[in-house]
């Protein structure tokens, strides 16, 4: 009997609390958002701010000690030193190449999984596309190292045609990154194609359009925002990568490698290098916002 009373009273307290929270939407919102907002502000925006600020510092060239003096020397060096310029352009080029390759490969795959395959197979196919994401990044990249190594699978398969694999280097990097990020491109396109109403295709044919015209005028424009959404992933993931290129890239250097090699000796320079991909991606997002892609993320 006594226990009954206490639980009833306990329930009453919870109910009263819930009730008073219900009547105070602002308090409710504050309680809900404080922790995640702190996380976002301190850990994420805070570290970004530190990155930006330290990019304007310099180092003592003898001791490698950071000197907290405001200067734009790092950025000046970044844009005037040919090596840096080359590496930046190469990195952006790799990211763009990976994005284009992913889009070109993903579209037919997504078209098959979303519209051609039997409806009951579709979820299974999506799972199959996702399974590589469950495997470790390093395992996959080392697998590609084996495939592309001299006398490896690529060489063996191309040998009958009198060709050899690309070996390690820039093409191998692009290839491996394309493999790694492909699922991020397939998924949004698959979703968009799956949601494309069938009667829009009927309507297009009904008005006299053949398949090619329907694809260009109806399917492509309606799916394009999702391609752009997928490209946000492929582009930014490629731009930030520095491990793949170390494993299959041979002597190729990307921005990430320069950041990595500068971090000990010249931290402000590494920070300046680090701001480059951030700026590039912000520019990329601004360009892409016009397609409406960010609404379909």
């Amino acid at each position, binding site marked *: 009997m006594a226990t009954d009373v206490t639980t009833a009273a306990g329930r009453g307290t919870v109910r009263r609390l819930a009730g008073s929270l219900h009547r105070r939407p602002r308090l409710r919102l504050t309680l809900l958002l404080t922790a995640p907002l702190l996380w976002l502000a301190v850990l994420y925006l805070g570290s970004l701010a530190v990155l930006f600020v330290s990019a304007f510092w310099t180092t003592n060239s003898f001791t490698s000690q950071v000197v907290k003096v405001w200067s734009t020397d790092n950025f000046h060096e970044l844009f005037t030193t040919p090596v840096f310029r080359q590496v930046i352009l190469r990195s952006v080029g790799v990211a763009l190449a990976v994005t284009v390759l992913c889009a070109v490969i993903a579209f037919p795959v997504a078209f098959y999984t979303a519209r051609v395959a039997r409806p009951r197979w579709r979820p299974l196919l999506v799972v199959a596309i996702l399974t590589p994401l469950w495997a470790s990044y390093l395992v996959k990249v080392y697998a590609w190292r084996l495939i592309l190594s001299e006398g490896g699978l690529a060489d063996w398969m191309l040998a009958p045609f009198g060709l050899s694999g690309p070996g390690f280097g820039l093409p191998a990097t692009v290839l491996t990154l394309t493999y790694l990020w492909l699922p991020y491109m397939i998924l949004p396109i698959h979703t968009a194609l799956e949601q494309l*109403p069938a009667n829009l295709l*009927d*309507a297009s044919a009904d008005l*006299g359009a053949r398949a090619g015209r329907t694809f260009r005028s109806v399917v492509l424009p309606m799916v394009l925002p999702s391609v752009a959404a997928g490209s946000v992933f492929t582009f930014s993931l490629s731009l930030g990568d520095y491990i793949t290129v170390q494993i299959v890239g041979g002597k190729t250097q990307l921005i990430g490698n320069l950041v990595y090699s500068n971090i000990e000796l010249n931290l402000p320079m590494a920070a300046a290098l680090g701001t480059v991909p951030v700026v590039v991606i912000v520019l990329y997002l601004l360009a892409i916002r016009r397609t409406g892609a960010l609404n379909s993320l």
Partner: protein
Amino acid sequence: MEGIAIRLQNLRKSFGETTAVAGVDLEIRDGEFFSMLGPSGSGKTTVLRLLAGFETPDQGRIELAGQEVTGLAPFERDVHTVFQDYALFPHMTVEQNVAYGLKVRKVPKAERLVRARKALAEVRLEGYGQRRPAQLSGGQRQRVALARALVGRPRVLLLDEPLGALDLKLREQMQVELKAIQREVGITFVFVTHDQEEALTMSDRIAVFDQGRIAQVGTPAEIYERPATPFVASFVGTSNLLDGEVAHRIVGAPGTYNIRPEKIRVLKESAEADEPEHATATGTVAEVVYLGDATRFLVDLDGGGRLTALQQNLETSSEDVAAYRGTRVRLTWHRRHAVRLPS
């Protein structure tokens, strides 16, 4: 002599185990407003999709203006469709939607614009050309779909329950407009609907579909006054179906008969059936349903059986009609309104 716009011969189509269309023969004349009426699953929409070319028949033949089109793709047929949910292209403006068919057929841009604007004017949507479909109301989208299908002046326009998604008022208004537009442009309209009232008000002729077959083809009056089967009688309008012993007693001859409720007059029991061509029956009012403009009486007849009678509320009101419940009445109707159905 009018030409034949569409001729269907022994058309059959199954989806897996289900037979959607089980042998349909039909001729639709040039310039006709033709309705295909039936409950859902009766095959009317499948026939429409076969006409448009979205499906190919398992068997049978489709002719369009004397030319066989059975195996042709949708884009090879001079037929346009207005879809149930409009199927407007969301990424195009209203004008681009309407001009799409012309663009595909490589009509020069200037002419395209002129014709698209003219088509929009026909459906009374001038000035809406630059909007997106998402910015329009249901009724406006409906008209854009109509303009898009009409702008290419097809031989036949197919309409798949185009008014289904509209509310009642808008729907009645669109019924009148659709009929007016059809008369204006003179194109054959094939109109699919499950709403018998819609079919009756708009059509020149109606085909009533029942389980993949056509139960009856005729003018609205023919369908309503002389239904060919019990199904047609009960699906189109309300009806009193009489058969067996009840029919024999009331009509005086064996067979299946139908009497429309509005043909039956409700009189006091003491009233004499004055005219010889009138039949009569007495009974007790079991239920009174007040409909505002009319009242429906459900009367249990003395010898068994039940008739529904519909009376205009010329002088009575809701208070008066309620008093009829449980009273004795005499029902009377003209003998020719007991329509015999072929068994």
